[in-house]
């Protein structure tokens, strides 16, 4: 069998064995619209400084509205929950469809937050912001779902909503905002709590 014929045969085989599902056109379009809603339009350099200031003020206002301010040392950090205690319901139902969704969401969010400092250092703030805006939508959907009523998940989701909203509105070079976000993540032990929850939801008891 010559090369071209071999390639055609392989291609046929792959297409037969791995048929591509119908394109979820409406779902993708809705996702695009949601992602773009959270992106700020391009602004001139002159107005950017003003907008940064306003953005910081808006973030602080959002923080007050949620009952917390993301500044260092403002309050005792939340305790890190235990997977067998606080996240027992998540761990017990790991594998159930709704908790698989939560596990997937938590895993993706953990990856984003873990990548955030490096990503912003490397000048990928816009990419990270786009990623955060997608996760922000998922966060809000989860908050409105039964998972969002879980006593251990509710405060975590609330913190994640705030930090993702901050990241989603970030632009390259906004160092002051980046520092605030990283301080907030650290002070509120967001990543540590997230890892415990992700482990519980994945059924691994969060022991990483």
């Amino acid at each position, binding site marked *: 069998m010559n090369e071209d014929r071999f390639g055609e045969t392989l291609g046929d085989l792959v297409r037969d064995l791995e048929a*591509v599902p119908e394109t979820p056109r409406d779902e993708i379009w809705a996702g695009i619209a949601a992602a773009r809603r959270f992106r700020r339009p391009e602004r001139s350099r002159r107005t950017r400084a003003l907008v940064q200031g306003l953005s910081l003020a808006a973030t602080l206002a959002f923080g007050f509205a949620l009952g917390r301010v993301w500044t260092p040392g403002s309050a005792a950090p939340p305790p890190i929950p235990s997977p067998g205690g606080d996240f027992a319901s998540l761990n017990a139902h790991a594998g159930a469809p709704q908790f698989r969704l939560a596990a997937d969401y938590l895993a993706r969010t953990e990856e984003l937050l873990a990548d955030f400092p490096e990503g912003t250092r490397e000048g990928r703030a816009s990419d990270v912001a786009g990623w955060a805006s997608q996760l922000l939508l998922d966060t809000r959907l989860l908050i409105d779902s039964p998972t969002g009523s879980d006593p251990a998940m509710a405060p975590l989701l609330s913190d994640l909503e705030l930090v993702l909203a901050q990241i989603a509105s970030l632009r390259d070079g906004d160092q002051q905002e980046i520092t605030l976000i990283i301080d907030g993540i650290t002070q509120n032990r967001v990543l540590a709590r997230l890892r415990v929850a992700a482990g519980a939801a994945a059924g691994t008891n969060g022991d990483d």
Partner: protein
Amino acid sequence: MLDGDRLAERELYEKHVDRVYRLAYRLADGDADLARDFAQDVFVRAFERLAEFRGDAALSTWLHSITVSVALNGMRKVKRWRAREADLDEADVIGSAGPRIEPDLKARLRAAIAGLPLKYRVVFTMYDVEGFTHDEIGSALGMPTGTSKARLARARARLRAELAEFAGEWVS
């Protein structure tokens, strides 16, 4: 369109989304959820950069270039995450020495393709599976047409060797 006309964007989306999604699906190793996320990201980026598109390449080529970039970057992250998950898995799963079951054709083919170096796999997927031309691949990946042809030949040779023992006659 360049002014961000939403109707024109929707028209562009409707025209290209199927091919973008198909390519994303293949590069996402058949994961429909990832393919959806990649396709979404492709159009978000494309719409943001539409003003930068100068028309010196076909719009479809430009979109496919973004698709490859988004999918490969996305898969790197996914693989990093999956590797970490595997580290967390039970040791008996990773290190089990249970009886080897001969994988079926689908699994073997998938493994053979997944085992190709990325630069070969992308060209094989685009040309043999999704029907792109070497010109299109060269433009999308930013390389000469000849390089695309060479990579395809190497990909096929590796697949032929990899599948020879399993598939016998039809690869020889």
